[in-house]
């Protein structure tokens, strides 16, 4: 396990991400920020907190999405970890929706998230914000806002660790046997 970004560098990437998002926040329609469990949820919470602080005039709804049931690799796993609830208790129809995740790689999580969102309603637009884009896409999906681009080999996983969940902060490279 190698450290790729320090806590400060994570903050810088997050600032970059926020800056990019902020430019496009609409003022004429409700904004829905949806974090994808687990670390997208934390990043979304940080973004929402800052948006609320710097743009109190905006109407921002905040939700959490658990995409476990929408994953296309569900039946390939052994054993079921605890699944947690999706928390979207507002109307998402016609919102400007920002999906937030930590790492964009194959794009499969985002496909699953879009499928899940579809079951809740019909946002006007959906934009995607990720802290790290590491490439390696397997589906035609791209992020609209990116904190930092990293490159890593196919046998390397990029792990984002965040204070709220992991008691430490940084981005790490983990070598793993190809699955």
């Amino acid at each position, binding site marked *: 396990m190698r450290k790729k970004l320090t806590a400060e560098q994570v903050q810088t990437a997050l600032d970059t991400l926020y800056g990019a998002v902020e430019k496009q926040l609409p003022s004429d329609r409700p904004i829905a920020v949806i974090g994808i469990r687990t670390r997208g*949820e934390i990043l979304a919470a940080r973004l929402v*907190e800052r948006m609320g602080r710097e743009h109190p005039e905006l109407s921002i*709804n905040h939700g959490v999405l658990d995409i476990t049931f929408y994953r296309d690799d569900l*039946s390939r*796993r052994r054993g079921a970890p*605890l699944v947690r609830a999706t928390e979207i208790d507002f109307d998402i129809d016609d919102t400007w929706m920002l999906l937030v995740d930590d790492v964009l790689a194959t794009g499969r999580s985002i496909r699953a998230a879009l499928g899940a969102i579809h079951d*809740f309603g019909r946002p006007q637009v959906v934009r995607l914000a990720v802290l790290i884009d590491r490439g390696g896409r397997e589906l035609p999906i791209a992020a609209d806002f990116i904190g930092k681009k990293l490159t890593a080999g196919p046998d390397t996983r990029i792990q984002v660790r965040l204070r709220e969940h992991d008691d430490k902060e940084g981005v790490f490279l983990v070598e793993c046997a190809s699955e």
Partner: protein
Amino acid sequence: MMTKKASSSSNARPSKSKNPKFLWTRKDLVGLDELSSEEIVHVLDTAVSFQEVSTRSIKKIPALRGKVVALLFFEDSTRTRMSFELAASRLSADTVFLSGKGSSTSKGETTLDTVRNVEAMGVDVFVIRHSQSGAPHQLVDKVNVPIVNAGDGPHEHPTQALLDIFTIRQKLGTLEGVRVAIVGDIAHSRVARSNIIGLRKLGAEVVVVGPPTLVPATITAMGCEISHSLDDILGEVDVINMLRIQFERFSSNLFPSLREYSSLFGMNADRLSKCRKDVLIMHPGPINRGVELTSEVADGPNSCILQQVTNGLAVRMAVLYLVSQSRH
């Protein structure tokens, strides 16, 4: 589930699950006797996640898309069947239903034959209700498909107990130290057995209440206490779970009449007034109104009978999801 409109991050706080590392690996759910307390909590926690699905406009998630849940009901049941069917459908599974009235005691197709036949058609989960104790347990080593017990004779009814326990936890926040009375025909009740086992594993106290003809003395070996007087325990319990009484029991001299049963072991407004103010009144349904419960109790503020039914769906979704994830 809270449904208030949130305009800030108030409801979406990052939280750690109790045991994020725990993996459910069990193929079958035939009884709570087989489960560890950790596994029981895992089912309950998973069920919490599924509650939200029922509040959506599209009440469906693709978790079991393309899978087939076979409901094999060798004994009649309308409600349990509906609950499982709906749970499977909310998980996007297809269901097939087979009803076979008991298994032939002499020659003819055995339960094992039937189950192997259905398995050969290519199903992914069996939900089995059977009039004979242990019927699903006898099958688990003989078929490869996960088996969920939807009630076996007077033995176990694990999903009913899980939804009862889920409801208690939802209302009281914990099971630890909670004192639960289970009232009625304990001897012939699968609901009682599964509840006693599950509640004890999660740290609750259980007292079973009924006449000696319906409460076997050796049931204390399961870790519960016995009372033959409902009135004696009213003030000391947090939950009263009233079991459905089968009318045919009084023909075998297990109690003299429904009238007498109701007067000694029925829940009414007078008895409710002697309970703790926030006592939970439960019943696995269907209620014999005026026998186990009077209507004012069944429909009153202490009753959580309908919540039990609602929770049953989330619990059964969780169970179907978990067992179907355990293999491949």
